[in-house]
């Protein structure tokens, strides 16, 4: 199979998902940990401020992924979004309250006001952290899609042991990823509690990623001849989780963060490799699966979009990288808190 523009866009969509999971993954994790690691209002504010400058930019990765799917693979966009209707509704509601909560939470002093937004940040982070794993698991596991590319199942078709394992893996991996981030960006008591969270959730996340890889072997056609055999990539995901644990043990948290990033990336790559060249698998008939060819835009549109992406993706990476440099310092008790 030649590497063509359709394949390039498949890879690009995968890259956008990896970017989203690695970046928004830690701010989901921080959001989930917020009510548990912050005991006082001031502590909670410090926790939110560790992701304050970056969460919104991180979220754009998924908006761009959505846009890229629409532009490059309109049928994928149409089938996925109409098919996963209720799951997406939940996800959207979560993303809406979460975004507003960050901005509104500290703009009023009333304790009930703040507590409400804190729990909305928690729920708004936990729901997508779980559902994104479930959603990606479903792409690979296969869902009822008929010969007209229409999803003919319901919400509960999306929930089965495999996709729930995938959801558990994403949820726990993001919490661990977020806890490590928080440890790197905080001081004092928050730093200490973040370490406790890492040590509690980290092993569960490692087990969940292991389970996810094993389940992918057992319950999907990932290692059949249909997709690209992901080879060592899934093992790398497990290895990176184990390595993260080892680095935490030696107090090398920067390296641990790199390892959880690698693990999240490798788990995502596993799914995309096993899918290729399909984008959504039909559980009814393999011939009804959506592929990067039958779901795609025209070569002309793909060419235009490729030029746009090749110019602007590097620019985005540069300036987003710069913001991480600007806000590389830890949030201490004396930092001015904006959120």
């Amino acid at each position: 199979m030649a590497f063509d523009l359709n394949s390039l866009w498949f890879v690009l969509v995968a890259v956008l998902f990896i970017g989203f999971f690695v970046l928004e993954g830690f701010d989901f994790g921080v959001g989930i940990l917020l009510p548990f690691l912050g005991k006082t209002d001031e502590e909670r504010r410090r926790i939110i401020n560790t992701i304050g400058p970056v969460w919104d930019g991180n979220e754009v990765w998924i908006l761009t992924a959505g846009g890229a799917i629409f532009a490059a693979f309109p049928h994928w966009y149409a089938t996925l979004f109409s098919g996963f209707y209720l799951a997406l509704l939940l996800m959207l509601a979560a993303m809406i309250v979460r975004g507003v909560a960050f901005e509104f939470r500290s703009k009023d002093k009333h304790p009930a006001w703040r507590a409400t937004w804190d729990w909305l940040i928690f729920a708004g982070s936990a729901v997508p952290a779980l559902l994104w794993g479930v959603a990606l698991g479903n792409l690979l596991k296969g869902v009822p899609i008929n010969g007209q590319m229409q999803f003919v199942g319901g919400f509960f078709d999306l929930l089965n042991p495999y996709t729930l394992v995938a959801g558990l893996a994403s949820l726990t991996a993001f919490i661990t990823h977020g806890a490590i981030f928080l440890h790197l960006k905080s001081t004092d008591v928050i730093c200490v509690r973040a370490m406790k969270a890492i040590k509690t959730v980290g092993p569960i996340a490692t087990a969940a990623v292991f389970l996810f890889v094993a389940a992918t072997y057992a319950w999907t056609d990932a290692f059949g001849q249909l997709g690209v055999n992901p080879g060592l990539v899934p093992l790398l995901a497990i290895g990176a989780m184990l390595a993260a644990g080892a680095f935490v043990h030696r107090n090398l948290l920067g390296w641990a963060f790199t390892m959880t990033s690698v693990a999240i990336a490798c788990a995502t790559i596993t799914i995309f490799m096993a899918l290729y060249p399909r984008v959504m698998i039909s559980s009814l008939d393999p011939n009804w699966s959506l592929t990067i060819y039958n779901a795609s835009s025209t070569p002309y549109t793909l060419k235009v979009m490729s030029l746009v992406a090749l110019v602007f993706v590097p620019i985005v990476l540069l300036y987003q990288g710069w913001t991480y440099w600007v806000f590389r310092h830890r949030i201490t008790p004396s930092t001015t808190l904006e959120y």
Partner: protein
Amino acid sequence: MDALTLARWQFAVTTVYHFFFVPLTLGLVWAVAILQTAWVVTGKPTYLRLTKFWGKLFLINFAMGVVTGIVQEFQFGMNWSEYSRFVGDVFGAPLAIEALLAFFLESTFLGVWIFGWDRLPKKVHLATIWLVALGSNLSAIWILIANSFMQQPVGYVLRNGRAEMDSFLALITNPHVFVQFPHVVTGGMATAAFFMLGISAWHLRKQRDPVNVEDFRRSFRFGAVYALVATVAVMLVGHTQAQYMMRVQPMKMAAAEALWETENPAPMSLFTWGNEPERRDVFAVKVPGLLSFLAYNDFTGEVRGIKQLQAEYEQRFGPGEYAPPVKWTYWTFRGMVGAGMVMLLLAAAAVVGVLRERFEQSRWLLAALVPAIALPYIANSTGWIFTEIGRQPWIVFGLQKTADAVSPNVLPSEVLLSLVVFTLLYGALMGACVYLLRKYARAGTVAADPHGSPTLEPYAARV
């Protein structure tokens, strides 16, 4: 109700709601950028206070615009999957480009702007708000390129049962974009200007704290000029747009005027009570020749009526109903234009007050400007309802009907659920947003002092 009707209601509710926040973002970001530039250049603390004050209101509003925008991007696939399949090859591109070029830019640099006050050199920090302004307005261009395709499809061929892009250049240079984008952007500026004027007027009436009053005098002058320039501009480009629409979407304009029969010279309706099923006036007040004049800058000239256009479209597209709901288009068009007229009068009065240095004494003007904050919101909402309903029965003019665009596999109960969820959620968030805007607007500039806490107490509590 069927899934189609519910999906249309959901699109209407979520889009109109989204567009409560977008225009203020588009217009206010320039004001904040200009005020901060004034501070960096002159070093006067008043400009810093004003930057912080308007910046805070900008942020509260911005957050709402962002989160409601996410729904917009996903909703095409969720509720309008047949539309997405049919036009995705063309329509998806501007949406993806909007995310890549605009969303990243505005979201990333807004984060830097909010948190970068103490971390960046003054000028670098100033640059970030200008980049946010650039990002938001870029976003408007790309989404309007997408919407313009729905109003006036260009740059495509019909092939393989769908619309396929054959010229990206034609898509982005769609003449419709050049009449629509200026109208939306100047509308956003007018929204921000009246927002600034209204809040400044409120503070000038209260006359609390000399520093605060002086800051709002400055804001008032700024807002008055901004309002007049923006309102004149939005009307001029709106007029150009209407003339253009006469040519490319004559049915929309005929419906806007409840013009049943083709007439030459065509009169302009001031008030029409019509019988829509029978397509005739029941009672109408009209100015002879004015519609011809507005359309062609000439008191003679034929304007095609609904009946003739219906017959033409039946020939072109086959049997069917090609007129949009006339009551909606007629009254929303009047809502938009009417609100614009009142805005023009108020903006002119405010500028006269500023020139004569008398605005602070004019109690009626200050009192009128506070509720006038609502006027641009009325104009924005009715304008969009008009332009989208006026395009019906088409989702893409001449290519696909709205009825054929809806997702076939989504159940009415699911759409009903999402409609209810969005409506309730949006209602609750609107309450929180208005509460915060009111609180911070009333608190004034002194409370928004850079050294004060962002969780300021209401101004009154401080004195």
